[in-house]
């Protein structure tokens, strides 16, 4: 029920640096759970800046950790005591190497002899190298130590001061650049928002490490006319707009004092800052456009849901058209304003509907709303309009499914209700799988192309299936429910889907199940759905784009320490990051990849499902174009088929991917799982759906996360990093991931975090990849549409 305006606009969570001017340069702050570099010559203020970042965390009640490798903690304390009382609360871990011993002495593990203490407890005298033992500080000994520290306390922010010291003194026999890269990956896995200071020579050469971090703040020190001049700039900041100018700053006892009203060039020549704020915010207009499109996609989903509920959505359609038109004309401001209005309207209608429904339906309804409300915020769909048209066949697919299923625990509220229970039946059946697809389709109509719902197939229910869903089906999702409708579903999928709009979806929903569905429908609920859908969908390759960042992902096998938190956050970030994705997009992998991507994106949800479904699907796939082949899962498959049709090559690839995973799990196997599976299945087929989910995911955080975990396996490669960081990785992951067998999946699942990222990543891709175009009908388009919006289009 939370219907906040925030949803509409890029709702990325931002982490304040503790320096308001710097936050402004960063368009609000840092994106959470990522490592950032603070680069500059010695003495420029890197340590001070990073301490301000930590103090800001203290002010917000967070636990923060300062890892010092260069200056002894006692000196850091003496140097920065004036920064405020909060400084004393910072935990500091002394990783400064001891005096080298030329005699042989027993080595001790650093983790066994040191732990973080608050600065307030740091002695004023320097720690003495022990006389008869040596503590070796190397990167390999430091990593597990840090991991242990992070487990001990739930740090939200961390500073490594400095990465250069780590390279110089703690990486014997390791290539400095590779070592730094490995360490950054490790940090990505930890999932904390981390600043690493990096020392560079006085001249401003670019460091090699700048390629590795998600963002880089650069401190300069020049001498102009005999006087030292300091300047700060944002070298890069993936996933966000940022100030592109250098601004002078001074060091004060309290920290950096940045003067935003002046810009400065490398010669140290200052000039009044031009009033090009717009440039600042719009630096990457394509990113703004991307966010808007995503929001529109989300909105589109809600509108479809409302249509099913027979709410008059005309004003919202107009709003969406206006937004898209403005977007096309690069009138971002107009687009944003109208988008917010439309979003608010949709939220209000959804709330009204839910309230009334709740009134009608006894208790259960209530439950539903709650689920929904939670997540939602993030992304919305992108490009609703365009996409819709694109892939008619693909359409909606599953995405709706959210809920689910996972047997596991669902963190989020949404999950609770729906999943487990009833569905087993459906889930077991192929139909269940299909379900997913159905759901989505129905809604589609949104602005662009509302394709009517062809058919009949309400089968979609399955999704709901997980729990009570079936009944729910009526909801938005096209699929009605429970029944066997598989066939119908298929029909939907393939065709225009959306058939059932009229139906009284709600009714079916009834008590318990209904809620879920509703949620799903409205983005709020998304979480659950999202995951599933994503998984399915995304076969479409578009995701590739997202992949950009891949490299990072691969590396770190070890997932982050704090999965739960990380996951959630990650997911959010991911959504936010879309831009990032763009960066990496470079490779447009064709069909084949898409599938992987999809999986990757979906990962969470998909995971389990995917496995199962994958199997089922795969059969279908073979059939390839012909949707039907896989008779087994009647309804569901059909939908998939359509998708395939759109991109034969792709589909196959997808199916293949899905298959791999799936083998392990039989489709319907477990009731609980079944639900999941169904979704998964759905997901695979309609990548589009997947996208939506992602967006929704944010809202549905917990559920999705679980799903994601599952899905992750597919994406495996990218795993941690990608998850944490950005989409880019995801993309990479997907391709490789798919292949990866179930085993991987399981691992990933555990890792949860990765999932989120994956989700995000995929979404974009999907959209771009394919679907969008197809969107013949709104329904099919739904998923597709969402995908398209992603990076590709924007980019």
């Amino acid at each position, binding site marked *: 029920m939370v219907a906040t305006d925030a949803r509409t606009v890029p709702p990325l969570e931002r982490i304040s640096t503790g320096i308001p001017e710097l936050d402004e340069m960063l368009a609000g702050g840092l994106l959470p759970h990522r490592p950032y570099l603070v680069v500059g010559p*010695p*003495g*420029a203020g890197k340590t001070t800046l990073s301490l301000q970042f930590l103090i800001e965390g203290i002010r917000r009640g967070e636990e923060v950790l300062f890892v010092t490798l*260069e*200056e*002894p903690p006692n*000196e850091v304390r*003496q*140097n*920065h005591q004036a920064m405020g009382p909060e400084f004393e609360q910072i935990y500091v871990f002394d990783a*400064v*190497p*001891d*005096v*080298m011993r*030329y005699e042989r002495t027993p080595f001790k593990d650093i983790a066994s002899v040191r732990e973080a203490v608050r600065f307030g407890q740091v002695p004023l*005298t*320097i*720690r*003495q*190298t022990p006389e008869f033992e040596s503590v070796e500080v190397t990167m390999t000994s430091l990593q597990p130590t840090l991991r242990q520290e992070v487990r001990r306390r739930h740090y939200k922010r961390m500073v490594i001061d*400095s990465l*250069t*010291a780590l390279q*110089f*003194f703690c*990486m*014997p*026999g390791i290539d400095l650049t590779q070592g730094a890269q490995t360490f950054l990956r490790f940090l990505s896995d930890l999932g904390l928002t981390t600043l690493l200071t990096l*020392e*560079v*020579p*006085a*001249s401003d*050469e670019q460091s090699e490490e700048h390629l590795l971090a998600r963002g880089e703040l650069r401190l300069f020190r020049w*001498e102009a006319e*005999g*006087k*030292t001049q300091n300047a700060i700039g944002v070298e890069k900041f993936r996933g966000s707009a940022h100030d592109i100018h250098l601004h002078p700053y001074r*060091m004060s*006892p309290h920290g950096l004092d940045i003067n935003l009203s002046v810009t400065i060039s490398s010669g140290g020549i200052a000039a009044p800052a031009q009033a090009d704020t717009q440039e600042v915010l719009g630096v990457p207009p394509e990113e703004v456009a991307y966010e808007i499109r995503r929001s529109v996609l989300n909105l589109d989903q809600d509108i479809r849901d409302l249509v099913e509920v027979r709410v008059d959505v005309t004003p919202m359609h107009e709003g969406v058209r206006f937004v898209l038109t403005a977007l096309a004309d690069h009138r971002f401001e107009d687009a944003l304003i109208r988008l917010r209005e439309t979003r608010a309207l949709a939220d209000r209608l959804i709330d009204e509907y839910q309230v009334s429904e709740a009134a009608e339906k006894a208790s259960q309804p209530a439950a539903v709303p709650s689920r929904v409300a939670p997540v939602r915020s993030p992304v919305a769909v992108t490009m609703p309009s365009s996409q819709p048209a694109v892939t008619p066949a693909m359409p909606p697919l599953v995405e709706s499914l959210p809920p689910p299923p996972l047997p596991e625990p669902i963190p989020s509220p949404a999950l609770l209700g729906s999943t487990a229970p009833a569905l087993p039946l459906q889930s077991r059946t192929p139909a269940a799988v299909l379900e997913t697809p159905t759901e989505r389709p129905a809604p589609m109509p949104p602005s662009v192309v509302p394709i009517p719902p062809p058919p009949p197939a309400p089968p979609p229910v399955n999704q709901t299936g997980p729990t009570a869903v079936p009944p729910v089906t009526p909801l938005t999702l096209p699929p009605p429910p429970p029944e066997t409708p598989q066939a119908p579903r298929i029909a939907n999928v393939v065709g225009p889907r959306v058939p059932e709009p009229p139906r009284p979806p709600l009714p079916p929903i009834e008590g318990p199940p209904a809620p879920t569905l509703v949620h799903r429908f409205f983005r709020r609920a998304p979480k659950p759905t999202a995951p599933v859908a994503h998984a399915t969908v995304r076969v479409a390759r578009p995701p590739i784009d997202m992949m950009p960042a891949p490299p990072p992902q691969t590396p770190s096998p070890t997932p982050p320490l704090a999965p739960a938190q990380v996951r959630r956050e990650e997911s959010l970030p991911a959504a936010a990051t879309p831009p990032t994705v763009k960066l990496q997009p470079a490779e447009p992998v064709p069909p084949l990849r898409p599938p992987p991507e999809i999986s990757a994106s979906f990962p969470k949800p998909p995971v389990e499902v995917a496995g199962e479904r994958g199997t089922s699907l795969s059969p279908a796939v073979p059939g390839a174009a012909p949707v039907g082949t896989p008779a087994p899962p009647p309804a569901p498959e059909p939908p998939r088929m359509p998708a395939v049709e759109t991109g034969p090559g792709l589909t196959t690839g997808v199916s293949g991917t899905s298959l791999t995973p799936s083998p392990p799990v039989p489709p319907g196997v477990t009731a609980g799982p079944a639900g999941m599976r169904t979704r998964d299945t759905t997901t695979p087929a309609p990548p589009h759906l997947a996208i939506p989910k992602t967006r929704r995911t944010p809202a549905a955080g917990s559920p999705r996360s679980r799903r994601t975990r599952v899905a992750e396996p597919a994406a495996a490669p990218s795993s941690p990093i990608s998850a944490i960081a950005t989409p880019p990785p995801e993309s990479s992951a997907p391709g490789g991931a798919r292949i990866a067998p179930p085993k991987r999946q399981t691992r990933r699942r555990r890792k949860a975090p990765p999932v989120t990222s994956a989700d995000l990543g995929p979404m974009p891709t999907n959209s771009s990849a394919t679907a969008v175009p197809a969107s013949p009908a709104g329904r099919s388009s739904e998923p597709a549409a969402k995908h398209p919006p992603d990076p590709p289009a924007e980019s």
Partner: protein
Amino acid sequence: MVAEGRVSTGVPGIDRMLGGGLLPGRPYLVTGETGSGKTLLGLRFLLEGIRNGENVLLVAVDEPPTEIMENVRSFGWDLSAIRTLDANPGTHGLRRLADVQEIRSLGNLKSMATLGAEGRRLADSGDEISIQSVYLKLRQQMSGGQYQRLVIDSLTSLRKFALKASSDPQAERTEVQSMFRFVSEQGVTALLTSAPANPRILTPEIMLSRGEILLTRKWVGDKSVRQIKVVRFRGSAHDLERRPFTITLAGIQVG
């Protein structure tokens, strides 16, 4: 002149630029070309300690202590109370790698006053010098923390020996790090002189020193002008300007 909790460099103008003086117990760099005044500044710093009744130590790597004494005679400075470690390598000092065992051959600390004008016979003193050997000697002599001030002249030369000892840059960095850590743990305020670093290369001493005083010379018209600048100084406000200074019979004067 010297603010509380600060260590005077012995030159009031530089103390002012440092916001009152150096922070105690930390190692600092004094960089500059040959002849820019690094050694003089280091000696002035030690003499200030003597004046305060502190124990001070000079590690002479570049020039033999006897030459140093002669060079400052014109200033009327009395270095006799300065303890010195003659770390000048012997003539065949570059011949082979230093071994830990060889430190024992390194001369013991002497008071400047005990050095004869004749100096040391270079040909006969084949001391092998390396960071390890100096470090071990220092450790042997300084355990107990009886020194308050230390000057190593110069770190650049010391590093050359270290380089010789190990062609592995990683090992060399580690040795420099270890040296700075050692100095820090002794609680001694130290000046390490060094040739100006290549601005395009990051060296561990730049990273690890808590501050840097840069001495330069510049031609202004037909005259060579000495300039001094505090490049960086952790934990303290400091002068951002580059200022002229002079070295005359009256000593070092800024401004």
